[in-house]
C-alpha cells in the first residue's frame, strides 16, 4: 500500500484549482444573479451598456481566477506531532491546529463537479465550537482515505494491518430507487408541498413586476376563473397540489438519499448517499450519543422505520453531525441498535407512563391563547368563526395533544433509557445512561399538588425531557442516572 508522508506540508490535488474556481464563481454568482436578471430584463439597458456589462463580468472572472490560484498555492496541510495543521490564506495568513484526539469526524463529500473530476472534499469536524470547521476541497479518493484513517484512527497507527480487511465489512442497508419511492410516500408529503408553494410564492413576489408583464393575459384569465366560485377548479387545484407535493418529495428524497448504503465496519458505521452531492460519513460507534427511530401508520404498512444517529456537537452544527437513514426494515433497525447498544438484546425494560395531567396542562396551554385571540377578532360572523374554530383548530389539536400525552412514556433498563414521544407518528429515543451529561429535576407547584415531576436529560447532542411522571419515580430515576454516570468509567466520547 502506498503510504503518504503526511508529516511534511502538502497541497491538495491540482484539480482543486477548478473546484475552488467553480465554488467562488457560484458564490459570487448567487449574489449578483438578481442584478444580472434585472440588467437583462430591463429594456434597452443591456443594449446600451453591452460593453460595460461584459467587461465587468470579465474583470470579476479574472479576479476570481487569481484568487483561486493564490488560495490554492497557499493552502497547505499536514500532520505534525499529533496535530492536524492547516495553513491557509494569502493576505491574512492563518494556521489552524487541531489536536487529533479532538477530531470528531472526518467526512468526504462530492458535488457534481467533483464527481466528474473524480476528486473528493474532506471535512474535519471537531467537538468544540470554537474551532471553525476545516475542509480540503479536492483530493484523490485513495489519498483522502489515507488522511481519513490517519486522522480518525491515529491511536492504532502502529497496528494498521487490520484495516485491509475490507471483506469483513458488513453491508447493512442498500436503498434501491424503488425503496426510495416507498420512503418518499411515507414522508410528510404535505409539509414538502407547502414548502414548495412557499418558495414559488417568494420567487414570484420578488420578480412579480416582470412576471406580470410577460404573462399578463394568462394571469388575468386565471383570476377571472377564480372569482367565480368553481368547484371543479378547486378540485383540480387540490389534485395539482397533491401531485406537486408527491413529485417534490420524490425529487427531494432522491437528491438527498440516492444510492444510500450503510456499512457496518469494525468500529462503527460508514454511510454513503446523495445524487448531486455524494457524501461519505464514517462514525465510530462509541461517538454516537443517541439513536432515534420513528415510524407512522404509513411507514408501518411498508415496514419502514427511519433512523437517526446523533453525535456530540456544538449547538450550531447539529444537523451535520447526525447520520440519517430515511428508511430501513425493523429487522435492520434492530441489528443497528444491537450493534451500538451492546447490552440491548439482554436487558429488561420497565415502562413508566406519563400522567393524565400532562394532557390537561397542554390542553390549557392550547385553549387559553386561542380563547383570548378569538375575543379580538372582528365580528365577521359568529357562527362561521365558531365552526372554523372548533373543527379546523380545536378538535384536531385536542386529538393531537391527547395522542401525544398517551404516547409519551419512558422505559429503563440497567444501562439504557428509551423515551417514546410523538402524536401521529411515534419516535423512540435510545440513550446509554453513561452518555448523559447532566440531569434536571423540575417540579412546579401545580405538579407538586398532584405528586408529579419532570426530568430532563442533557446529552452532548440533544436534551430530552421526560414530563409529568410520578414524583417518587422521578427522584429514583434522577438518583439512578447520577449513580450510573458517576460509577461508570466508560468514556462518553
Amino acid at each position: 500500500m502506498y503510504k503518504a508522508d503526511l508529516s511534511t506540508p502538502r497541497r491538495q490535488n491540482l484539480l482543486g484549482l477548478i473546484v475552488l474556481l467553480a465554488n467562488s464563481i457560484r458564490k459570487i454568482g448567487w449574489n449578483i444573479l438578481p442584478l444580472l436578471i434585472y440588467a437583462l430584463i430591463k429594456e434597452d439597458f443591456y443594449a446600451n451598456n453591452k460593453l460595460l456589462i461584459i467587461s465587468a463580468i470579465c474583470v470579476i472572472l479574472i479576479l476570481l481566477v487569481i484568487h483561486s490560484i493564490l488560495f490554492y498555492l497557499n493552502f497547505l496541510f499536514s500532520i505534525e506531532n499529533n496535530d492536524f495543521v492547516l495553513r491557509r490564506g494569502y493576505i491574512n495568513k492563518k494556521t489552524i491546529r487541531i489536536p487529533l484526539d479532538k477530531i470528531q469526524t472526518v467526512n468526504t463529500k462530492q458535488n457534481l463537479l467533483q464527481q466528474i473530476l473524480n476528486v473528493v472534499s474532506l471535512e474535519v469536524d471537531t467537538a468544540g465550537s470554537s474551532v471553525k470547521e476545516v475542509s480540503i476541497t479536492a483530493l484523490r479518493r485513495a489519498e483522502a482515505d489515507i488522511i481519513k484513517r490517519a486522522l480518525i484512527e491515529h491511536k492504532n497507527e502502529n497496528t494498521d494491518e487490520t484495516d485491509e480487511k475490507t471483506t469483513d465489512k458488513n453491508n447493512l442497508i442498500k436503498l434501491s430507487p424503488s425503496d426510495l419511492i416507498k420512503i418518499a410516500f411515507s414522508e410528510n408529503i404535505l409539509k414538502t408541498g407547502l414548502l414548495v408553494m412557499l418558495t414559488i410564492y417568494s420567487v414570484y413576489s420578488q420578480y412579480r413586476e416582470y412576471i406580470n408583464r410577460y404573462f399578463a393575459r394568462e394571469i388575468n384569465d386565471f383570476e377571472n376563473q377564480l372569482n367565480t366560485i368553481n368547484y371543479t377548479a378547486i378540485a383540480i387545484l387540490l389534485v395539482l397540489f397533491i401531485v406537486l407535493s408527491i413529485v417534490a418529495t420524490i425529487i427531494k428524497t432522491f437528491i438527498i438519499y440516492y444510492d444510500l448504503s450503510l456499512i457496518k465496519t469494525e468500529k462503527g458505521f460508514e454511510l454513503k448517499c446523495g445524487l448531486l452531492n455524494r457524501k461519505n460519513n464514517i462514525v465510530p460507534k462509541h461517538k454516537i450519543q443517541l439513536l432515534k427511530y420513528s415510524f407512522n401508520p404509513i411507514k408501518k404498512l411498508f415496514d419502514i422505520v427511519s433512523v437517526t444517529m446523533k453525535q456530540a456537537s456544538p449547538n450550531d452544527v447539529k444537523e451535520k453531525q447526525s447520520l440519517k437513514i430515511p428508511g430501513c426494515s425493523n429487522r435492520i433497525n434492530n441489528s443497528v441498535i444491537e450493534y451500538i447498544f451492546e447490552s440491548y438484546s439482554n436487558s429488561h425494560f420497565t415502562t413508566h407512563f406519563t400522567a393524565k395531567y400532562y394532557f390537561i396542562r397542554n390542553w390549557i396551554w392550547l385553549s387559553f391563547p386561542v380563547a383570548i385571540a378569538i375575543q379580538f377578532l372582528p365580528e365577521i360572523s359568529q357562527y362561521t368563526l365558531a365552526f372554523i374554530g372548533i373543527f379546523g383548530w380545536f378538535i384536531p389539536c385536542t386529538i393531537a395533544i391527547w395522542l401525544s400525552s398517551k404516547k409519551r412514556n419512558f422505559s429503563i433498563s440497567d444501562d439504557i433509557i428509551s423515551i417514546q414521544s410523538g402524536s401521529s407518528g411515534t419516535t423512540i429515543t435510545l440513550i446509554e445512561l453513561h452518555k448523559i451529561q447532566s440531569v434536571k429535576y423540575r417540579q412546579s407547584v401545580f405538579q407538586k399538588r398532584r405528586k408529579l415531576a419532570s426530568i430532563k436529560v442533557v446529552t452532548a447532542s440533544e436534551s430530552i425531557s421526560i414530563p409529568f411522571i410520578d414524583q417518587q419515580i422521578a427522584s429514583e430515576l434522577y438518583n439512578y442516572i447520577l449513580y450510573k454516570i458517576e460509577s461508570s468509567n466508560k468514556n462518553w466520547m
Partner: protein
Amino acid sequence: MLFKNESIDINSLPSIDLEKFTPIEKRYRIIMVINSIISATIITIPIILVSIFNAEVPLYVRYALSAVLLTYIIFNIFWSRISIQYKSYLLRSNDILFKKGVIWKKTTAIPFNRIQHVEVKQSAIAKQLNLSKIVIFTAGGNTGDLAISGLNDQTANKIREFIMGKLKDYV
C-alpha cells in the same frame, strides 16, 4: 419502584431529597435588584426618549409608563426576597447540584466526570460586595451548563479548586 435491578438496590442510592443544600449569600439580592432595574431601563429607554423629546405624548401616558416601571421595580425588590431563599447548591463527592425556582422549581445536577471546565466570574458591582459567580461547562451546550451566582469570593474559588482537583482524577 423505578425498576428491579439485582446488583444494586435503588433505595440505597444517595438521594437528593434527604440532603441539606447551602443557600447562596443574601447580599446577592442587591445585584438581583440592580440587574432587574438595568434590564427594565434598557427595554424602556426608547419609549422614555420618545416621550421626553416628543411633546405630543399625552401626560397620562408618561404617568402610566413611570407607574409600570416603578411597579416592576418594587415587585422585583419583593420578589428577589422570596426567590433568593430558593437558590441553593449542594456539593457532593461526585457531583454538584443547584436548586432554584419558586413556582417552577428546578434542580440541576452535573457529575464531575462530565465537566469540561470551570470558570469563576465577577462583575464590577459583585466585586464591591465580595461576590462571585461560578460557571460550569459540560459538553451538553447551553442547556447542559450551570451557573451559580451569589457565592462568596472565597467559596467560589474553593469550589473551583475542589472540582478541578476532582477533574484530574478522571483524566
